[in-house]
């Protein structure tokens, strides 16, 4: 394939955007909208071998191409764009600024596809900038106060991010002596260059503390735009880091520590902030932040231990695709739900919404559960000191995501998003398609690339208990919240009502005692009510949750430590001092029965 094909794939949305300037062509172009990302998808599906194409005259020498990683990124990104375009067609039907949205949407699409296909720093940077700046138009689209604020914050972060990225790329290009990303990846970049690249891309990725722009922007953008912002575009940050930072080549211990710590904080803190949101889309935005925390943990581990990169890399790509599809589906789901007018449709869509929500939360066998377990397995190659904590964070993220998803579902009902009056089924279709794909990902992924999928398929299916715990906490919180909203005394009244009725029927003998009980029952709730009002419900819940997981994980990791360490310690202490040996031996004897049992067989 030639450069022309690549330029066509990137340029096709640009051609459509230009054609939108002609008013007569607009209806046809809107109908063609889902076809705009199609060349990208076809390219991704058809190219099986790594490719390089060059255009000597462009900028400072243009290089484009596809490899194993970028191919997978291209496929899931273009699928998301196709779904979002189909939804946009109907979502924007009566919008007075539909044309402007379409232009910005297509520009961002071209940038997103372009950066995945770029192999040199200029093209990458250009496409990245095109995507980021065009998305401003998507965020600000509704022009209400929230959108304007979100867009201002967004563009501020974009500009700063672009500048940091520029300096990072200049440093990297100088140190590598080449503008090819592959050469930068193979070079021993200085710590400063890597730090700049990590921050520049980290802003796009939304890892704390660089996340501030993300939830408001994803909340303010129209639904189809949120889907690609959250599903496809933030992955550009991950893709950039994977393309330009010498992961698996050079160890950057300090960078790794910071990224990993940021990732862990992100997983926890995004939950705390997310559950306090009052509408569904920012909650989903915070869920994205939380999920990118997991990605950051993987990146941090690979920065610390280059040897672990081989194992971590395929998992990161898988997680990116998994989150992209599930989160894209969820955002489109919010839109599809909002367009429903009938109660039945709303209930059906809520159930459908729960599918990608559960996938994201890490339901066993689905991509969420597999991805998380594969990540845990890959992390065992990394730092041993961090490992128990990482496992803890990953487990916790399951609970956290479940809670965020529960919050999102509750908010759809409590605070329904506004939707244009359009065909509800037309909006439901892309949502259901993406949700289905998110569910089918473990099956589809090996078909795309068996080698890259192997570590994921080899992973254990994942545990159900974090999910169950999340659901339990969510239910508890929901019930408590309901109790608070009706008043605690009344709530207890409601709970005790059946018993009361029964007792009334039974006998008057109980009447006196019941009156006494009632007096008591009125006094205690008042106390409790005053108490609970001072505590934010969510914080209490989370504190309990963290405590619970800590206990469970501490128990299991303690067991692991006791299994492994004595044998190791034995080897060391035999040579050093005899003092500790008896103590160690006694521990070993406790653990020996299996070995002793095995011996007679021989």
């Amino acid at each position, binding site marked *: 394939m030639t450069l022309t094909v690549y330029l066509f794939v990137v340029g096709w949305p640009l051609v459509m955007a230009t054609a939108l300037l002609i008013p007569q062509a607009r209806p046809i172009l809107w109908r063609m909208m889902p076809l705009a990302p199609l060349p990208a998808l076809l390219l991704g599906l058809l190219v099986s071998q790594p490719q390089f194409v060059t255009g000597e005259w462009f900028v400072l020498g243009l290089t484009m191409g596809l490899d194993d990683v970028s191919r997978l990124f291209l496929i899931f990104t273009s699928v998301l764009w196709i779904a979002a375009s189909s939804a946009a067609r109907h979502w924007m039907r009566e919008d007075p600024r539909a044309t402007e949205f379409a232009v910005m949407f297509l520009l961002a699409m071209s940038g997103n596809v372009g950066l995945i296909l770029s192999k040199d720093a200029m093209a990458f940077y250009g496409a990245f*900038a095109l995507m980021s700046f065009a998305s401003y138009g998507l965020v600000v689209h509704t022009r209400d106060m929230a959108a304007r604020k979100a867009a201002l914050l967004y563009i501020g972060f974009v500009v700063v991010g672009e500048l940091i990225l520029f300096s990072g790329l200049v440093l990297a290009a100088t140190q590598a002596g080449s503008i090819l990303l592959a050469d930068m990846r193979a070079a021993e970049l200085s710590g400063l260059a890597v730090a700049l690249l990590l921050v520049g891309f980290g802003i796009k990725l939304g890892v704390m503390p660089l996340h501030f722009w993300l939830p408001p922007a994803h909340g303010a953008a129209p639904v189809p735009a949120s889907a690609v912002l959250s599903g496809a575009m933030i992955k550009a940050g991950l893709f950039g880091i994977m393309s330009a930072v010498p992961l698996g080549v050079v160890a950057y211990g300090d960078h790794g520590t910071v990224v990993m710590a940021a990732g862990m904080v992100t997983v926890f803190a995004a939950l705390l902030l997310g559950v306090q949101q009052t509408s569904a889309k920012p909650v989903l935005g915070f869920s994205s932040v939380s999920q990118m925390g997991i990605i950051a943990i993987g990146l941090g581990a690979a920065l610390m231990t280059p040897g672990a990169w081989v194992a971590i890399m395929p998992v990161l790509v898988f997680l990116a695709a998994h989150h992209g599809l599930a989160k894209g589906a969820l955002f489109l789901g919010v839109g599809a739900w909002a367009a429903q007018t009938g109660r039945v449709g709303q209930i059906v869509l809520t159930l459908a919404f729960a599918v990608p929500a559960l996938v994201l939360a890490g339901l066993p066998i689905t991509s969420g559960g597999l991805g998380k377990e594969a990540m845990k397995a890959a992390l065992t190659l990394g730092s041993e000191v961090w490992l128990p904590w990482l496992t803890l964070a990953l487990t916790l993220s399951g609970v956290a995501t479940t809670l965020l998803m529960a919050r999102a579902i509750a908010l759809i009902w409590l605070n329904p998003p506004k939707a244009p009056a359009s065909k509800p089924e037309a909006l439901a279709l892309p949502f259901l398609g993406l949700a289905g794909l998110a569910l089918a990902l473990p099956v589809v992924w090996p078909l795309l690339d068996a080698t890259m999928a192997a570590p994921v398929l080899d992973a254990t299916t994942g545990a159900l208990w974090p999910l169950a715990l999340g659901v339990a906490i969510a239910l508890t919180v929901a019930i408590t919240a309901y109790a608070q909203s009706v008043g605690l005394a009344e709530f207890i009244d409601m709970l005790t009502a059946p018993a009361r009725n029964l007792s009334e029927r039974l006998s008057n003998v109980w009447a006196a005692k019941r009156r006494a009980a009632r007096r008591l029952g009125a006094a205690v709730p008042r106390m409790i009510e005053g108490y609970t009002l001072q505590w934010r419900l969510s914080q209490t819940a989370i504190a309990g949750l963290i405590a619970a997981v800590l206990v469970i994980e501490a128990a299991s990791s303690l067991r692991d430590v006791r299994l492994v360490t004595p044998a190791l310690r034995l080897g060391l202490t035999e040579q050093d001092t005899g003092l500790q040996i008896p103590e160690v031996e006694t521990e070993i004897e406790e653990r020996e029965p299996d070995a002793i049992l095995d011996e007679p067989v021989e």
Partner: protein
Amino acid sequence: MTDMPLLPLFILLTSLLASPILFALPERAANLRTGINLGVAAIKVALVAWLGWKVSQGVVYDVHFTVLPGLDFKLQADPLALLFVSLSAILWLITTVYSVGYLESGSHRARFFGFFSLCVAATVGVAMAGNLFTFLIFYELLTLATYPLVIHRGSAEALRAGRIYLIYTLAGGLVLLLGTLGLWIVAGTTDFVPGGILADVAAEQRLVAQMLFVVLVGAVGVKAALVPFHAWLPIAMVAPAPVSALLHAVAVVKAGAFGIMRVVYEVFGIETAQAIGMTAPLAALAAITIIYGSLKAITQDDIKKRLAYSTVSQVSYITLGVALASPIAAVGALAHLIHQGLMKITMFMAAGNLAEGLGVKKVSQMNGVGRAMPGTMLAFTAAALAMIGLPPLAGFVSKWYLAQGGLDTGAVWVVALLLGSSLLNAIYFLPMLYRAWFRDGTETEAVPARRRIGWMLAAPPITTALMVLAVGGFANAPFSPLEWTRFVVAIEYQE
């Protein structure tokens, strides 16, 4: 093979001879005037293209007449001259189209186009001057030819601006005269020679060389709007839009920047300039100007003033690239000579269109102008994003080379400086784009459309915007400004 040894002189004469004819034409002979204007401009572009071809083939042009013994009037067409000549020839053609449209119903058109032509002739002379003496002649001519253009409107404000402009530039010219005399006395010649003519002097009389450097660079620094000699530039923006466009993109400011190149590269030589310890202070001054100009630009509400301060900042990129004394940075500097010209001329012509078509002269009136004048604002947007430094637009290429040049000499602060400058660029350009495209025009209290914007006003900014895209997007292609720049730098650094 020099089948036409006087080609540089012909190029100079095209616009120089057109000038008296244009003066002589009666005011109402508009069509004839337009014909002459465009005809001459087109002929010049063709001649320059021919010259460029010849020079790239290795032909050397040298035209000189002896004025006094040892003092020659000398024109040469070295690659550096050609870079500037082609910029001015092409942009002159475009600006002529724009001016014809702009002044369609204006007064004193004979005077305007006469001086306009003279101004471009002076610029070409500055570009092709083969020694500092010739340079001085055209440099002064440029001052005198632009003054009537700056005060063209004849308002009190314009006259005041013209006075300030004259004070600054004539003072600069006087200092340049002294410097030229000094150079002649010290070196016995004023020729521009790659590698410089002052290596021996600098070795023996370091202080004299240093003083000469300060005098010469200071003199041309006035036109290059280096802080603290920049004040005339924002005031001179009262001139009509095409004049501002030409002033900022090609003629005056660029003559100053070009002068700095000639002085540093071909009077002193970059190694000598470094040896006498003058490049670092020059780089520092350029850095200060870059940041100062940008900071001042943020506070301006008047569109043209904001653009003017932006020029103060952007032109110093050129000085910075020269002063960094790295061939890579030099490529950035020279490319920026072209790139900045294209970007800024686009913006000034777009600003002119806003003022003429919508009566919008202030940033705060720009709400919704994108919808009202999409073509003009698309051009403006492309130029603004190029200034911020987004690839594949022109500004990115120069910034990339400047940053790499800074790292090349171990000056990491250059990257930080470019970062800061780009951030400031974004801070003063993005709000304009935001208002133009993302705000509705209801709050505009501007005067309703004064006149229709014909193709003569609409096409030039779009053309230059496309060029901004092309010189960046095809920076690596043969005969792109960047390629030519690499050729020039190889000569100046004698590689």
